[in-house]
């Protein structure tokens, strides 16, 4: 390795009693892709925020191109050639690509903008790195993959020599990811350096030369990508050996529990259009798709928080009851996508959150008065059965970690207040149930879904994670622009076919 372009020395950052970064030292070479791997909460974001000057480290120094970088100064980081592409884009939808790229790079004191020079420079940069984009296009009209390209261009336009990409493939189809990797290869070939943050092991090995693994704030391992394996990386990440989710074929598929027939929802940012789907007893149907293609509409419809405007939904032979409390009473278990903002009410205690879905039922209230003892006992059963750790029944739900919060939601959905703890619901609607969880919690959630299915529940799994869809789904359907492909057996799909359907290309309904 030649002289490092970036040197982090003994970076330590504490938040109260939590040590987010513990004495981390890293080097990045010219023309190198370094993957920063770690679970949520391992300290990746903190480290990058320190690098970028958003946080000030309690100890340690950073050197870029041999010069010390002043701490806590984002402008200095930019000037030193460090650029970042965030997972959630920071683009103005109503402006053109050129405007977005120029934004903030011109002095406010100059009387006129120098658009022509800027355009020439943008085109030169785009050509140099093979990033093909229409400079006049409005960002609002671009696809997610194209927007990401604009973000990268924005960084390159400002003379970035070290580019940080935060979970760049989370919003892309497999094909778009491939295109991104090609661009990265070109950038590296021209001497740029890249820090690639991810928790997907496969793509980390695919794009990077070197991998650094963080766990609980510590740098636990560094390895050349060519000299390590996925299982080795996973073991470093979690601290013990793990096995990826194994397919467990369904062997007891029964009658239809829930049938959607040509269902549409009201036009909104996300909607369903003529979606048909059958969910059977003892079977997991998984929905794949790029996020934002109607998954939320489907999940909210089946959770009772959104109404269908056309088509019919039938639950166990009867018309769809619509209201959340009725759904829960009929045995629909609901796991929402956003556990912090929708799944629980963070300010209220665990026990109230546990009982909240059934508070109107006779089990938990009489004549409008809450039967606190029953609700409290139920919450403790959920906490015990699903091993919710970190806070007692009286603590506010927000004090739980993401994984434990998800266990609480899962437990509340799956534990029936009257029957024993293993009584299963009829239908489980799980939207991104493992998103953002650490590997141990992911495994736990997936095993619970398998167990519920084997006990006879119909399961709908909506996930952005293609690996999860293929590992858990007995049948798989792809959603694109609100339309569902027919659900086919998981083994009948190739990865390529799913990728094309996610992009809306081979989907039979997408081209009327």
């Amino acid at each position: 390795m030649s002289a490092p372009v970036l040197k982090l020395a003994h970076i330590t950052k504490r938040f109260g009693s939590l040590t987010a970064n513990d004495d981390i030292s890293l080097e990045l070479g010219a023309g190198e892709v370094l993957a920063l791997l770690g679970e949520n909460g391992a300290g990746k974001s903190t480290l990058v925020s320190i690098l970028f000057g958003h946080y000030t480290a309690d100890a340690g120094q950073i050197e870029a191109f041999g010069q010390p970088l002043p701490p806590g100064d984002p402008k200095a980081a930019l000037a030193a050639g460090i650029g970042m592409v965030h997972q959630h884009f920071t683009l103005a939808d109503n402006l053109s690509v050129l405007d977005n790229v120029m934004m903030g790079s011109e002095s406010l004191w100059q009387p006129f903008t120098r658009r022509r020079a800027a355009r020439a420079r943008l085109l030169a940069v785009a050509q140099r790195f093979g990033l093909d984009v229409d400079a006049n296009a409005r960002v609002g009209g671009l696809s997610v993959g194209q927007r990401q390209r604009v973000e990268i261009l924005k960084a390159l336009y400002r003379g970035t020599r070290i580019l940080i990409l935060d979970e760049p493939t989370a919003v892309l189809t497999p094909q778009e990811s491939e295109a991104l990797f090609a661009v990265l290869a070109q950038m590296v070939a021209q001497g740029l350096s890249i820090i690639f943050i991810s928790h997907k092991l496969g793509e980390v090995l695919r794009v990077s030369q070197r991998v650094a693994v963080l766990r609980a704030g510590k740098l636990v391992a560094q390895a050349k990508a060519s000299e390590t394996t996925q299982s080795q990386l996973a073991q470093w990440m979690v601290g013990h050996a793990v096995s990826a989710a194994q397919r467990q074929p369904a062997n007891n598929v029964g009658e239809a529990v829930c049938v959607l027939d040509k269902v549409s929802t009201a036009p909104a940012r996300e909607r369903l259009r003529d979606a048909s789907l059958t969910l059977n007893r003892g079977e997991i149907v998984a929905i794949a798709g790029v996020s934002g293609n109607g998954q939320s509409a489907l999940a909210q419809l089946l959770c009772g928080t959104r109404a269908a405007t056309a088509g019919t939904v039938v639950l166990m032979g009867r018309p769809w009851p619509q209201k959340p409390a009725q759904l829960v009473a009929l045995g629909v278990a609901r796991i929402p996508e956003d556990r912090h903002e929708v799944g629980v009410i963070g300010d209220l205690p665990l026990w109230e959150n546990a009982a909240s879905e059934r508070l109107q039922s006779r089990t938990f209230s009489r004549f409008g008065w809450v039967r606190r003892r029953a609700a409290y006992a139920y919450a403790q059963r959920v906490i015990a059965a699903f091993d919710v750790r970190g806070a007692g029944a009286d603590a506010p739900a927000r004090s739980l970690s993401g994984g434990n919060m998800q266990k609480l939601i899962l437990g509340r959905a799956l534990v029936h207040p009257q029957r024993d703890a293993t009584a299963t619901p009829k239908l489980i609607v799980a939207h991104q149930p493992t998103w953002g969880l650490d590997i141990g919690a992911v495994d736990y959630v997936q095993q619970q879904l398998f167990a519920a299915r084997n006990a006879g529940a119909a399961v709908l799994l909506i996930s952005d994670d293609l690996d999860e869809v293929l590992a858990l789904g007995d049948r798989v359907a792809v959603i694109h622009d609100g339309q569902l492909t027919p659900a086919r057996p998981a083994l009948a799909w190739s990865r390529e076919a799913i990728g094309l359907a996610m992009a809306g290309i081979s989907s039979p309904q997408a081209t009327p």
Partner: protein
Amino acid sequence: MRLEKRAQQSAIALALAPVGALAFTLLISALLVRWAGAPVGQAYGLLLKGGFGSVFALSETLTRAIPLTLTGLAATVAFKARLFNIGAEGQLYVGALAAVAVGGLHGGTGFALPAPLLFVLMMAAAALAGAFLLLGPALMKARLGVDEVVTTLLLNFIVLLFVSLMLDGPMKDPSAMGWPQSVALQDELTLAKLIAQTRVHTGLLWAWTLAVIVWALMKFTVQGFNIRAVGANTRAAMFAGVPVTRTVVLVAMLSGALAGLAGAIEVAGRTGYLTLDMSPGYGYTGIVIAMLAALHPLGVVFASVFVAGVLVGADSMSRAVGVPTYIADVIVAASLISVLVATSLTQYRIRWK
């Protein structure tokens, strides 16, 4: 400078926060008292004596605390559900107007009904008037997303003009020598005095009972859960099956009713008739009380006595040492701000870069 969330709240900090807030308030106010040229120690002593130092002082404080408790409860209930009702002042006046309309001696005679029944009708009319005044803004918020802060605030002025219209017109007392004041309540409908030869009346017991009822409602009932859930996180409440619109409407009715009762009890317990200067901003002070009480219904009881004591004490202090009575407003406002800051400092620490 920035705020960082504390990993855990210390019990000592929680206990010291109100003490620190009080000390800071007294310090700020002391500077102003000095500026007015009065001796600080004596001024504070007089203020304390004037607010709490004798049976008479205490009775005046409690009298003042009655409407403040009710408007404080009105704000508490609404704010718990994130319905920012700034219109308690208007609801108080329509409540008082409704009370006089039902229980007043129109043209020398009132409704020929038994007094207990008429009393219940009078209170119900006041509660309903307040409730329905807030219903419009609440529905507009729930259905159309109209900001209730604006609508409830502006309604206050409309209501005051309407009351003025009524007091100069149909409900004017012909025997009031031209003053814009309403007809008087029937004698049997006025509230009894709690202590002889003072102004404190049984409305105090009403207010405190209502505080306990509101507390129990919030803590032990499904509706109370619904209200707290909607206020804490509307999306999650909807997901859990809380009927959000219905809950907001219910909260509005409850909050408006409490403020309306404040007006009726003030008329029945203290004035006996309605004038345009009956409330020196009780509706707005209720908001301060609700915040001082950290939106706890029982805390409202204590916060309203504190605020009433400062207001009453400042009156007598200003007569003695010549500090303007505005010092009371400063003390109340400074205590609100310092309590809010102290509370947030128990949750956050300040980091200087």
